[in-house]
């Protein structure tokens, strides 16, 4: 049986980290904008 676990590990690591980082990036930007909302209204 061909052992190709290296490709599997790389695939799952890339997909997991890319999707996780994207979700965190979007969430962080939402929070930053939500925090700046009262400042905007005050100005």
């Amino acid at each position: 049986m061909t052992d190709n676990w290296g490709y599997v590990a790389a695939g799952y690591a890339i997909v997991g980290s890319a999707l996780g980082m994207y979700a965190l990036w979007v969430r962080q930007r939402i929070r930053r904008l939500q925090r700046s909302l009262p400042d905007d209204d005050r100005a």
Partner: protein
Amino acid sequence: MKRLFLGATVLALAATLFLALYVTPPRENQGGEAVRLLYLHVPCAWLAYLAFGVTAVASALWLLPRTRHASWDLLAGASAEVGVLFTALMLVVGSLWGRPTWGTWWEWDARLTSTAILFFLYLGYLALRRTGATADERGTRCAIAALIAAADMPVVHFSVSWWQTLHQEGTVFNDKLDVKVNGSMAVTLLLAVAAFTMLYGYLVLQRFQLAQLEEGREERALQRAIEERVRADEVAVV
């Protein structure tokens, strides 16, 4: 509600990971253990279709005067961005699977090439969304571009039937609707598609919310600038 949905998504993804890495068997003719990349590659491909399909429908709804609403334009943009991410991942995972199975990272065959074109078309669409214009102009321009780009989707899907390709026929959606996996592989694939679809839903909702916040901020900034200008003009008159 959103947290509950996110929790269910994470749970479904964890179950997929467990089944894909520990339960399903390897296949010698598909790269041995590398066949486990199927549970990433197929869901990513499905979500590329779904995401760009949603973009096309939302763009058409924006273009129709009766259904025109700013939300359609924002939804089209949000779905396209998530779709580009899934298309990029599909290409990367496909390449990782192709190396042990076909002996090459990349081949300029019809499926791979049309998918790469799809990726660059929607990358261009995202770039177009950032060009300076009013929200209306941008919406119309991008909606037309999205509908033109969507024409590549049937080419991608049917490329394996229309031309001789190194890429195999669809695992589930092929000409004869002959599902090429069964048993634990079929269950895992189905779960993977469901889990990734839930993740797509969550990401699009988040990206849509972000787009709404950004749009609101721009509108407020414009409103403030107009008010300041009016005040300045009034002072000048006095």
